[in-house]
């Protein structure tokens, strides 16, 4: 240690400082946990009292009419997330495989890794603009597909990095055993290495999914929103976060009520997937690697 202990040997002062520091740490913990508890309590309180069957079965009512639900938004979110996952998961996993199995310790892989990390930090609204000018402007209309693309791109970096980290944990003996049995390399990577690391890889995919499931900003000018049933990928489509936003900034009490219900449903969706992730991770990440 280049630093010396304090010159003052007055242990009372030092103990006092110690206690103050402890108190401050405890205080900041309380201050962090309070808003969290407040948010969840409010969500449960407001959301649960507004949830009913109509929320899951009906489409939004026009302004002035009480009732209605977000059935179309739930379906729309499902469709957009399905497109996003179809795009983001294979590409993300493949890039992760490259980083862990082929490019390890190469300069190119380092650059890819760094780019993925940087891409992860690009604000979601910027992703929305890029996809808007890439897909929506040439097509001249908003679409479910473009929303899916925007979210899919956002999933890739997360999945790539977690896949890589999980694959790196697989011991070499497993790979060599597979190759020793005469498997071609691609088969060994897909059925042995990737399979061994699968709980961790699934964790990464779920994390990415949970992250984009609540994204609103990139959908504002891609999926755009829709008050009616729509399953057409080429048309504007409703999405849960988008609908919550529209209702939250509206001046109508009944819409505020629906926004809280929507937020509760969205949070439950995300918390359930995060909890699932932790369960899977605690059970099997080290399968074969430990």
């Amino acid at each position, binding site marked *: *240690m280049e630093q010396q*202990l304090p010159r003052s040997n007055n242990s009372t002062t030092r103990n006092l*400082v*110690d206690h103050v*520091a*402890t108190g401050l*740490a405890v205080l*900041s*913990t309380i201050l*962090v946990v309070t*808003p*969290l508890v407040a*948010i969840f309590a*409010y*969500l449960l309180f407001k959301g649960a009292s507004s949830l009913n069957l109509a929320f899951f079965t009906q489409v939004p009512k026009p302004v002035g009419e009480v009732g209605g639900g977000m059935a179309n938004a739930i379906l729309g979110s499902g469709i957009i997330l399905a497109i996003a996952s179809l795009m983001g998961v*294979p*590409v993300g996993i*493949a*890039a992760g495989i*490259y980083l862990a199995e*082929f490019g390890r310790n190469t300069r190119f892989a380092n650059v890819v890794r760094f*780019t993925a*990390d*940087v*891409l*992860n*930090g*690009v*604000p*979601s*609204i*910027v*992703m929305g603009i*890029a996809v808007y000018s*890439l897909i929506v402007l040439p097509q001249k209309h908003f679409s479910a597909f473009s929303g899916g693309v925007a979210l899919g791109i956002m999933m*890739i970096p997360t999945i790539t990095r977690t896949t890589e*980290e999980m694959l790196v*944990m697989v011991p*070499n003996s497993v*790979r*060599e055993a597979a*190759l*020793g049995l005469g498997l*071609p*390399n*691609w088969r060994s*990577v897909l059925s042995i290495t990737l399979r061994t690391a699968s709980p961790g890889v699934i*964790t*990464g995919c779920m994390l990415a999914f949970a992250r984009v499931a609540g994204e609103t900003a990139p959908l504002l000018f891609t999926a755009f929103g829709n008050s009616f049933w729509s399953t057409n990928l080429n048309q504007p489509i409703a999405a849960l976060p988008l609908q919550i*936003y529209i209702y939250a*900034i509206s001046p109508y009490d009944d819409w505020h009520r629906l*926004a*809280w219900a929507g*937020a509760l449903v969205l949070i439950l969706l995300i918390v359930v997937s*995060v909890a699932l*992730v932790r369960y899977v*991770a605690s059970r099997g*990440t*080290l399968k074969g690697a*430990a």
Partner: protein
Amino acid sequence: MDSNTQQIRTRSFAPSLSQTAIAGPSTSRSGSPAAEDPSPSPVRSFLHARGSSAGSDRAFRWLMVACALTIFAIVALIATELVMRSEMSIKKFGFGFFVHSGWDPVTGDYGALPFIYGTLLSSLVALAIAVPLSVGLAIFLTEMCPGPLRSPLAFLTELLAAIPSVVYGLWAVFVLVPILRAHVNPVLGATLGWTTLFTGPNYGIGMLAAGVILAIMILPIISSLTREVMSAVPYAQREAVLALGATRWEMIRMGVLRNARIGIVGSVILGLGRALGETMAVTMVIGNRPEIVRSLFAPGYSMASVIANEFSEASDDLYLSALVEIGLALFLVTIVVNALARLLVWAVTRGAPVRVAA
């Protein structure tokens, strides 16, 4: 739990320590074996050369390379699209766009200064609130927390990162803003009004509300990364300081915080990057008025929120182009901020054994 933190969490070791490290980099605290390097093993190259599937192997390899290249392609595509679509505004206004403070779609007068000001100010307020709290939380969780409490508390704070931005916004509009308006702002105005930061009409909505909600949102990122770099400091360091007669706080200050400081700075910058680009919650509470006012009570506007609010209504090309240019600026700034943060965190965590993230 957040993807950003997730990635960095897996490698941890302080650089200043790795030179003096007592334990070699291959000894992992979590008990997992050190990562093995698959490529240079002679057994593998022998088996590869012998295989009859060289063709399919090569195809597979190139497919994986192509997917890795996709990541570059995406970043390049975003950049070119943004530059292309903002060309008109870049040509018309030049650099003056960023130092001019008009915003009038009717007369075609655009300047991004109010939005830059709003983004910077709300992010700074957020950092001012979030940094002490998250470092305090990290200290509590790594050094003081009784064992049974640690895991639930860590899980709770990670849950904060899982809440979508729009839900934060909803909560801020209906809970936080009324609280600020009725209880917090009058007190701030009375006690700190002389700084002129807390003056003017008290709407509740405004810079302060945006800063507070941003602080709550970036807390989990900063604190979980800080926790990670702090727990990467070897126990021998702590024990050595304690053996010299230090109190617990002196141990934390000299043994832990000093060694983890670069990583902590990195995590703060990463939190800043997140705050700069945050859109929905800020849009809902910042007030959406393109003015530069010193008071934190006053409504403002941020770069991300002006895009969110006006992009789909932008009627003429120049308007759209100006908005895209704001997006381009946001893109470049967040890239620089994130790259800087990554480099700092990498500098700290480089060469460490891979651990299971969860």
